[in-house]
């Protein structure tokens, strides 16, 4: 186990440094814009690291339920598992055979992605 700061705390330290000490020194507007994009990217990392494996496990459980799999196959690589289940669902939709409740379930999964990728977008959305 690594010592503190943990991964999210370390990402936060880097982001705070860029925000408070670097952004104000950038005169080139293109460079400044890309720095703000980079800071946003680090914010995504922070939230993803802080959330841990919970969102991915929720997604796997939701997809398995939707696809009528009695329980999610036990896979130590949850990311690969989520990808496989997403592919199965994508094929079902493309084949005109989407399970009942697909739209609501997929929307909930996308909302979960936004809580990490762009939480303010989700909060403002109406």
């Amino acid at each position: 186990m690594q010592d503190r700061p943990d991964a999210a705390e370390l990402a936060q330290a880097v982001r705070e440094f860029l925000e408070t000490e670097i952004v104000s020194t950038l005169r080139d507007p293109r460079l400044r814009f890309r720095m703000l994009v980079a800071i946003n990217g680090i914010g995504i990392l922070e939230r993803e690291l802080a959330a841990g494996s919970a969102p991915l496990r929720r997604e796997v459980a939701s997809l398995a339920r939707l696809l009528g799999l009695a329980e999610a196959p036990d896979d130590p690589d949850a990311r690969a598992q989520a990808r496989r289940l997403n592919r199965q669902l994508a094929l079902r939709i493309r084949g005109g055979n989407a399970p009942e409740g697909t739209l609501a379930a997929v929307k909930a999964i996308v909302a979960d992605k936004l809580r990490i990728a762009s939480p303010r977008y989700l909060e403002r959305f109406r």
Partner: protein
Amino acid sequence: MLGTEAAIADALRVCLVPLFGTDVGVERLALLAGGASKEAWAADVRAADGRHELLVRRAGGGVIHSHTLSLEDEYRLVSVAYAAGVRVPRPLAYLEDLAGRPAFVAERVAGETIGRRIVQRPELAAARAALPAQLAEELAKIHAIPLDAVAFLGRAAAGDVVDRVERELDAADEPHPAIELGIAWARAHPPKARPAVLDHGDFRVGNFVVGERGLGYVLDWEFGHVGDPLEDVAWPLVRSWRFGADDLRFGGVGRVEPYLDRYNALTGRNVSIEELDYWEVVGNLKWAVGSVTQSRRHLSGQERSVELAVLGRLTAEVEYELLDLLERAG
């Protein structure tokens, strides 16, 4: 980078001789913000007849979509639009080889192009009020250009647009159930086919030069094609192009009705809001898969860029809007 700049300045001087005479000189050359697939350079040029402010568009690292126009065809298209009285910066020359890459030269115009500023800045309030009708007028002019003047362009019917989205999604090799739902919905709700017109292909806030009185110029013609007029009419409605002013469905600057009424009055096409609903969904589909594709340009090493990388994660925003539209459509 400095080496490139010097090489471009030298090559540009030689290329501009036929336009401005042998004693032409490049006084200043600077890389500007703008198009991700192409470079945009500001060039200040001194010639016998005075000083000229030019914009040089030069090929860049890659393309956004598989159907982007070559710089040569983009130049031809802008020339056709200019001749038809569309507000585009005056095109001056196509250069086959500007320091190793094709480029074209046009007059450089002043004004605001940044979407977030256009929808927010207090001094642009009058511009926002004028834009819906002005943009309808410009789009009506574009859609009236005879197709035999743009015979070099590809064609895309409504179904083709959805097929292309599916092909681009398959090429990215990442499952996206949200995008699949959009594709399925679009195929289940085919729109009334309309006679094809010249489509600008990226007609939205962010690609317009705006001043205090509203529209200055229409930029970024690289997605020009022959297709359904409503593909263009509905594109500025896509939420991503409202730049945070989400309540104003027309590009974050106004309501749809005055825009559509003006467009209908000028074209006689009698487009209904309901028809725009279909094309707004398709617009979100196009941009959802567009942001996936753009992130692949970074991931593949074709064009390493933190902007393109983060865009991959912002696909979820477009997917959420897409699913919300599908939910409301029932």
